[in-house]
């Protein structure tokens, strides 16, 4: 297990560095890093510090958050199909963010944007847990997720269509597919505190998630309080997915693919899967964000497109396995 974590940290660090040196401006590695660390005159420090650094940091924290929440929700619902993007939690967060932007709340107070998204994510996660709780099977989970997603996406589209701003309607793509292009350090500072808080909250559920391996009753008999666990989990997911969606849009499948790939490497223990998935999610989103810049540098290809190309076939595979009765 140690080598796994060492490797994940190494890969994530390398991708973070690669994200910093990827960009159309064609700065050399040395020049870029010097401008980043030492500053100086001219456009290079602006490019490195104001454009590339926030993008790389957001790739790290948004990806890490999505991986972590995916692993946590799967552990809690005991279902490998649970993922914030697929089951409507991110969609509800996007709705919250869109509402904050369109009502002008985010203009009067910057914190309103992540807070409103957080509220949306909390409602989505709460609704889902209420509908499909740990006793609900895959079918309930997926149906509840479809319903919540549909509702959230329709709400988002409605709000954007009603906007007097001609761009707003076209932004549905961003909210559905996600992008980290042209975000600034302001966004980083806006989302970092709630996301760190959420990660800490989710980390406290690690042992409880392990206990849930044996089922709800056995876990409760081992001292797990179902109510406080649910509360901590929903709050933690909302604190992470809300702000992440507010700045990056809905980046789907990260929380599905990463835990699925890493599960065998941590002996399937939900507690060990949490930090592994956080690192893996960060690596995946950083890699996808580098890829969108390399594949179509001038078109702002959406991140969610890439993650869906990787994730959707895997999702189908998982449904197939669940259908044929096998457990993950």
């Amino acid at each position: 297990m140690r080598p796994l974590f060492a490797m994940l940290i190494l890969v994530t660090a390398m991708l973070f560095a690669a994200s910093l040196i990827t960009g159309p401006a064609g700065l050399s590695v040395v020049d870029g890093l010097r401008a980043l660390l030492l500053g100086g005159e001219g456009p290079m420090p602006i490019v490195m510090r104001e454009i590339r650094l926030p993008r790389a940091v957001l790739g790290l924290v948004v990806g890490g958050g999505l991986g972590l929440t995916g692993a946590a929700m799967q552990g809690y619902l005991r279902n490998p199909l649970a993922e914030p993007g697929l089951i409507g939690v991110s969609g509800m967060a996007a709705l919250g963010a869109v509402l904050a932007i369109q009502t002008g709340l985010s203009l009067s107070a910057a914190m309103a944007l992540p807070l409103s998204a957080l509220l949306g994510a909390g409602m989505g996660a709460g609704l889902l847990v209420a509908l499909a709780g740990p006793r609900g099977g895959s079918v309930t989970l997926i149906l509840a997720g479809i319903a919540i997603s549909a509702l959230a996406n329709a709400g988002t589209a409605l709000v954007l269509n009603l906007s007097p701003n001609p761009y707003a309607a076209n932004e549905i793509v961003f909210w559905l597919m996600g992008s980290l292009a042209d975000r600034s350090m302001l966004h980083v500072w806006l989302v970092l505190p709630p996301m760190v808080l959420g990660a800490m909250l989710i980390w406290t559920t690690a042992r409880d998630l392990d206990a849930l391996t044996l089922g709800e009753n056995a876990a409760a008999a081992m001292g797990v309080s179902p109510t406080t666990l649910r509360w901590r989990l929903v709050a933690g997911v909302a604190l992470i997915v809300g702000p992440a969606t507010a700045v990056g849009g809905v980046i789907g499948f990260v929380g599905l693919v990463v835990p699925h790939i890493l599960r065998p490497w941590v002996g399937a223990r939900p507690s060990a899967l949490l930090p592994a998935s956080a690192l893996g999610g960060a690596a995946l989103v950083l890699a996808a964000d580098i890829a969108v810049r390399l594949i179509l540098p001038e078109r702002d290809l959406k991140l969610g497109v890439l993650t869906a190309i990787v994730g959707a076939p895997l999702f189908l595979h998982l449904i197939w396995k669940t259908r044929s009765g096998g457990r993950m």
Partner: protein
Amino acid sequence: MLLELRELSVIRRNREVLRDVGLSIAAGELVGLIGPNGAGKSTLMEAAIGLIPFSGVSNLAAMDATARARAAAYLPQSREIAWPVSVEDLVALGRIPWPGSGRSSEDRKAIEAAMTRMGLEPFRHRTALRLSGGEQARALIARALAQEAPLLIADEPVAGLDPAQQLACLRLFQGLAGEGRGLLVSIHDLGLAARFCSRLVLLAKGRILADGSPDHVLRDEVIREAFGITTRRIDTPDGPAILPI
């Protein structure tokens, strides 16, 4: 007393599932809980350990969650294993109520002892989900043993096991009682119950119909009242065999 229930009643969906149940289990007792389907055996266990709301008194449900988990281990009827964890990690889950995160020397000792006791060393690194039903049941019992609680409450632990596994399991329980643990075990096979349990509690329609030695509980008229059948009892040197007719 490891378990002390008084006037325990459970109402589910406006129906009284358990009514005024009183039951106590001391160290060294292997108590068999028998009764027809729907009598309330599982409900009694769940209420005793505080998983469902009830009225009355349970010494376990009154404790805080951690203290209760250290006082009583519970084996639910559904042998659920959600993830493909290794047998060793599965058994280690029993250490969750204890400090040490499963890695302290005490934890290691308890885990190893439980695995040895259930003969699981050869399967240590195997994925629990890929074991046979009997092996999975043993791994789950080992998990409960690793919890090192003085009381073990097991819901239908031998259901679905082959005769050899059933015998092995009940012998193990007898051994545990011999070491001073208390056990409450629900069981359908009256013959096995009579042979292995030191005491039987017969539950029917949510009430305790009889509580005492197997000979006292398994009288024809009691069985007729509880199950609506007659039985023939054949005494053998290895214990009684009870045939439903």
